[in-house]
């Protein structure tokens, strides 16, 4: 998976692209945890899922894991640009109760 981290407005954006499944999870975790631990990362982290063409519950695990880590560092986590398939998974698993969906 590709991960592109940059600051935009009030957010540090983590732009993801590719298919988020078991095969991609370990590398994605590493890239996110490295990229979001550097100086200059803002209080609000926005996961931009616009480039993600597929996600399953392994992806939910990755998102929940990042949420816990980021929360410990006092960060807020938001999510945007989810496709229909991903939206259904995020709703089914109740993820939106802890990371709000925003439109940017």
């Amino acid at each position, binding site marked *: 998976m590709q991960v592109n981290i940059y600051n935009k407005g009030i957010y540090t954006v983590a732009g993801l692209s590719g298919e988020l499944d*078991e095969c991609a999870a370990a590398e994605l975790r590493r890239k996110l945890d490295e990229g979001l631990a550097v100086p200059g990362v803002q209080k609000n982290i926005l996961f931009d899922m616009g480039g993600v063409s597929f996600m*399953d*519950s*392994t992806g*939910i695990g990755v998102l929940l894991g990042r949420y816990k880590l980021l929360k410990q560092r006092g960060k807020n986590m938001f999510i945007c640009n989810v496709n*229909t*398939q991903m939206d259904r998974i995020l709703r089914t*698993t109740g993820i939106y109760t802890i990371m709000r969906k925003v439109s940017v």
Partner: protein
Amino acid sequence: MNRVNKFNMRLSALSENESFARSCVAAFCLPLNPTLDEINDVKTAVSEAVTNCIVHAYQGAEDKYIDMSVTAEECGRLTVVISDNGCGIDDVEQALQPFYTTKADDERSGMGFTIMSTFMDEMLVTSEKGKGTQVSMTKFIRGARNADSRTDSSTD
């Protein structure tokens, strides 16, 4: 006449085969005229089942196999059976509970079976400790050519 089309495949239990497995099922069910949402539901459910084989049944051991058997009936009934010869599940009823996971430390959501049962119309899990697990899932493709001829009660 309800024509039946089948395929079987045996895959190494490697995570890079997840994408291949779900794409195969998606391509195979195309003649049933599924909507994009229906295809995505099936792909997601297949991915969950294959992940379970790799992560739970075989605990990452790479010299194992996953068997997948898919049946597409002209009436729109798509059946996907995914089985392994792995460790089996202690308590299937408990495993089906939302958020239940044996691997919380590995950032597992415990939502695999919940997603399978939500995204498919039927799901049956049978497992024997030390022998393996079989997940059988059915999806009724609404737009199938002979969907009207279906006698199944799940179609309305």
